């Protein structure tokens, strides 16, 4: 059996066949070779698998691959333009806003979704915007500061 799906990933056409109960996270990682999205909890609590689906931030562990037909998904692999990092990525590095890095792709996608809706968020808005992303290494201060400095650069 299996479902054949025709979709768009980071602006490029993609096709895959997946099992009916296979989640988008597994499709991205195991069928499309996009291993940026990580499985933390697999139940929508940690945000490590965050992607942007038709303009909305979602946990890819809570989307079926079968649902993707005709949809468009953005993953962390589409964030940089070639070798040029996105300002969010650059400021995370410059501000040491990561340690082990497992949560970072999801946090960057969540921050990207936030800044598209709100280019000048307050600290509180950033903390609420990232409340669905858990980091067990850094604490969140450096992450919040990196998003603030990236937002500032993106506005200028």
């Amino acid at each position: 059996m299996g479902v054949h799906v025709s979709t768009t990933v980071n602006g490029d056409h993609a096709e895959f066949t997946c099992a009916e109960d296979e989640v988008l996270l597994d499709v991205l990682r195991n069928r499309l070779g996009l291993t940026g999205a990580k499985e933390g909890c697999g139940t929508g609590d940690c945000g490590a698998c965050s992607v942007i689906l038709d303009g909305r931030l979602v946990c890819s562990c809570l989307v079926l691959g079968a649902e993707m037909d005709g949809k468009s998904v953005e993953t962390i692999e589409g964030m940089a333009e070639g070798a040029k990092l996105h300002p969010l990525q650059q400021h995370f590095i410059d501000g040491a806003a990561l340690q082990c890095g497992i949560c970072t792709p999801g946090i960057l996608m969540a921050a990207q979704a936030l800044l598209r809706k709100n280019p000048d968020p307050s600290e509180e808005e950033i903390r609420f915007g990232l409340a669905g992303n858990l980091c067990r290494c850094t604490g969140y201060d450096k992450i919040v500061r990196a998003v603030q400095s990236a937002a500032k650069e993106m506005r200028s």
Partner: protein
Amino acid sequence: MRYIQPNTAKEAAAALAKEKGKAFVLAGGTDLLVKMKAGVVEPDLIVDIKGIKGIKEIKKSASGFVIGAAVPCAALGENKDLVKAWPGVVEGASLIGSKQVQGRCTMAGNLCNASPAADSVPGLIAASAKVVLTSPKGSRKVAVEAVPAGVGRTNLKKGEFITAIELPKRAPRSADAYLRFIPRTEMDIAVVSCAVNLTLDNKGTITAARVALGAVAITAMLVPDAAKAIIGTKLDDEAKAKLAAACSAACKPIDDKRGTVEFRTEVAGVLARRAAEAAYSRAGGK
């Protein structure tokens, strides 16, 4: 397991009705996929309703709002007319989960998951919202409070599913509010919750009200005595005290690690008072 995405509600209902195994409706999947992962449910058939025309739309009409069953909660807060007319309904729905969950979760799913603590349900009950149920025989409308039957159980018949939630037309000087108690600031489940919906006359006297409580019984519930306590008043201290007492009296909560019976009973009254104050002020009362 099979997965289908029908284009019409009729087709979806027919597939649900004729399935001999376990059939589940998929809208946002934020409950269903978690339960599948945990092995709590093992569907034979998943009917993804998002392909049904209009089911992801919010429509404003002369008789109110029609919110398609697959509208993600994030879209509710983006609809300025809806926020203006039903701020309490929107604030309840907006409290469910993280931004990621908001991008997928739906009020219809929150209702059918039938948790007593569902954040969007008290607001819908207070609003006199109705659900449109479609089955192979046609469709019918029932009050939101008639949907949950108990923890994790609904009164929906086999082959029946929600296609839309309807919010009635607003009288002038009407507003609603929703409050919940959680021990943290975000990403938690209500220990107690309350929604108040009211209408004022031009002197600020409450002419109509509905009060609903969540997480203090096996389902979210309407509390008619609480509404009676404030109708005909300007929400003075005596009315607020009676409102709080009526809410506390209606509570039949459980003791668990998140709150005791005594705590939930007391806080239900406190939240009712505060939600009533918020709704009263939003409706233009002073």
